[in-house]
């Protein structure tokens, strides 16, 4: 295994962390968007309270992945930048709007337009971003990219299904995570049935989309599809087991277990993709080897990553532990 390979593994792990944390934040926005009925306001509050302390940290995983990509595989980043401009710009607009709208709603007190407007901006941009990132990811799989043809990635059926799949996966994760948050406090327990229904529904949607996606993979991206059959079966099985046990756990109201299995289901998909994608970064254009920066730089980055993790892991652990459970006092205030 070369240093570049190792860096690619680090990137995939970073992407997994982003999907499981930041992805769920996007999903939270989706449920904010789809909140209906009597409990809509309570549900939006639950989403907002769950995101509050952690969304900025979750979001940094994306920066981490982008930085790994442009520093470790600069040529691939150059290709991505000059061919995937439409999905990337959409993702970028979504990220900027979502983050800004979230704090404007939380702190604006209506100074810049009613808070619920910003709430809608937050929700819509949260939904756009995973679709755009999914479309961009799909283009790396098909390799159907060309300078001067910016529309290709967004008009491919495979790309669009991948985008929707990414959206469904984030919504699934968010619903599962929120089930546990809601169940943890008597103030929000009444939201559990609705969220549980949403979690089950989005799990089924993910399954159906995966069933559509597989034949498309073979027709649109034969190179990756062949490797997928060779290498990715264990990950697909892992993902399927994760998905099915999530359904069972949700059914049985075991929400902490469901969080873990839902995470495994999503991670399995990403790892299956990564295994099939290797050694290509952009199929037909750049491989891990061809696009790699000089080895000394990659080694330095890997060392920096290790040093960084020494700070990062305990800090993240503290953050998540500190906010693991809703605090009774705050909940009480929210109700008053």
């Amino acid at each position: 295994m070369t240093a570049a390979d190792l860096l690619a593994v680090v990137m995939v792990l970073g992407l997994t962390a982003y999907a499981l944390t930041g992805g769920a934040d996007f999903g939270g926005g989706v449920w904010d968007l789809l909140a209906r009925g009597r409990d809509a306001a309570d549900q939006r509050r639950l989403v907002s309270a769950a995101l509050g302390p952690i969304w900025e940290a979750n979001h940094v995983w994306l920066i981490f992945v982008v930085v790994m990509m442009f520093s470790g595989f600069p040529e691939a980043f150059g290709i991505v930048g000059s061919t995937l401009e439409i999905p990337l710009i959409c993702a970028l607009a979504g990220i900027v709007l979502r983050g800004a709208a979230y704090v404007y709603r939380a702190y604006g007190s209506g100074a810049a337009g009613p808070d619920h407007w910003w709430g809608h901006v937050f929700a819509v941009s949260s939904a756009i971003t995973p679709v755009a990132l999914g479309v961009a990811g799909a283009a790396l799989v098909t390799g159907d990219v060309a300078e001067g043809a910016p529309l290709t990635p967004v008009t491919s059926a495979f790309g669009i299904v991948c985008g929707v799949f990414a959206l469904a996966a984030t919504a699934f994760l968010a619903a599962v995570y929120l089930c546990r948050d809601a169940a943890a406090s008597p103030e929000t327990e009444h939201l559990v049935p609705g969220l549980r229904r949403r979690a089950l529904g989005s799990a089924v949607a993910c399954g159906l989309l995966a069933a559509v996606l597989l034949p498309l993979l073979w027709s649109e991206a034969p190179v990756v599809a062949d490797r997928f059959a060779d290498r990715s079966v264990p990950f697909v099985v892992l993902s399927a087991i994760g998905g099915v046990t999530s359904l069972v756990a949700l059914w049985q109201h075991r929400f902490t277990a469901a969080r873990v299995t839902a995470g495994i289901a999503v991670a399995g998909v990403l790892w299956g993709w990564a295994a099939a994608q290797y050694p290509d970064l952009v199929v037909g254009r750049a491989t891990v080897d061809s696009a790699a920066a000089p080895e000394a730089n990659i080694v330095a980055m890997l060392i920096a990553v290790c040093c960084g993790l020494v700070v990062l892991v305990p800090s993240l652990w503290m953050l998540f532990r500190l906010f693991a459970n809703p605090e009774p006092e705050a909940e009480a205030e929210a109700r008053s």
Partner: protein
Amino acid sequence: MVQAAEVLSHVAALAQTGDLNPASATSTGLARGQTAISLAFHICFAVFGVGMPWLLLYVEGRWVRTRDPVWLALTRKWSRAFAVLFAVGAVSGTALSFEFGLLWPAFMARYGGVLGLSFTLEGFAFFTEAIFIGMYLYGWKRLSPRAHWLTLWPIAIAGTFSTLFIITANAWMNTPGHVTEVDGKVVSAEPFAPFLAATAPHQLIHMLLAAMMCTGGIVAGVYAVGMLRGRRDAYHQRGLRIGLTVLLVCAPLQLIVGDWAARVVGNEQPIKLAAMEGLGHTTTHAPLTLGGIYDEQTGEVRHGIEIPNLLSLMQGFSADKEIIGLAAVPPEERPNALLVHLAFNVMVGLGMALIALSAAVGFVVLLRRRRGQRPLVPTGRPWLWAAAASGPASVLAMMAGWEVTEGGRQPWIVYGRMRVDEAVTTSSGMPAIFTGTVLLYLGLATALILILRRMATGGPELGGSVGEATRAPDIPDARPAPDQQAPNLPASASAGDGSGNGTGTDPSGREEDTR
């Protein structure tokens, strides 16, 4: 803004010279415009991410020790403003990391690896910041006051290190070294190349001081405006005092760093120095030209004030020091000296004004101390107006400074190695992308200004009465009293100070206007 003007004139200049095909020239102009706007937008918030935690460390530290509600009120107000500024800074920073690739794909493809270590470390610094900001903003009730205060340390340290890492990347673009290229491909690069860039040390210190000055100036400005409107309570007095102290201590130091910076630039990027000074022709006994407009045709500055020999003296401590002029390189390798000279003068002029304010305030403070007057910081209306102006002046000076750094590097994206027009995207969608970016950022900036104005207006914050408690971070009520007492904060606070803490330990006690 200066940078926007630079871009427009750049577009115009390229269109006139016609040495490039118009589409690519437009593309370059628009991509530069978008980068300039994104950077300007980002940096206006990033400076608070660097400066605010240090100020919060001070005010919250005072609160932890004294439990004085005025310190808590300052902490609460600042932490809310900081939350918004940091979030916008964070998302605009993310946008930048994408834009590098979208706008300058060839640059990233060739040099991404060189900058890898800087950006990787920056990523971790940013991570640390974001994690502890989550704890800080939302952990009021879950952490003890002391633990809560401690979470500020990693935020402050990581914010400062972020500056370090990002500045090294920019410094390398200005003075690239320690990299070997063959046929336009980097074959070997020392991982620490950005950290070894000749311009890195002064750029870093210059920027850190600028960040502190901007933060201090804006904080002082907000409270000065409040006092001009008649709110002269302890809360405003202390806010003003802290902001002004930070600004006015940093301003003179900035002069020393600036002088050092100019000498390094003169050695490493003589053409940039020539553009800054509006020096057309290489000469000894070079004068320092204040103000004026650089005329490209004659290579002279019109309407400027020349101080004979001074530039040579400043650069080489001798009037015989030869200073390289713009004419030393062909016209297509010269930056736009008109704008760079102008921006440089704006920066230096504002910096000098702030130093003058610093000296004047310092003098008056000493005087008042000798006379036993309190508060030490003068709060007459002219002083308050000066303090109110100092914030925008610092920010404008910083932006002008970046225009000097970036505009003065033109036409290079990596000095001497890659030109901006070689790096730019070939996308035909640039006009649409540019328009979209401008509209997005204008909208967000307008909303943000409205929100910050609302936050800045009025006295100390009333306990969690605004909005729903779960939306905004939960913030504790002042120790002894819940919400009901909050509206009377300043009055009760100064009374408490006067009788309790005594004037010896807390100079801010009994802050009455003795003007």
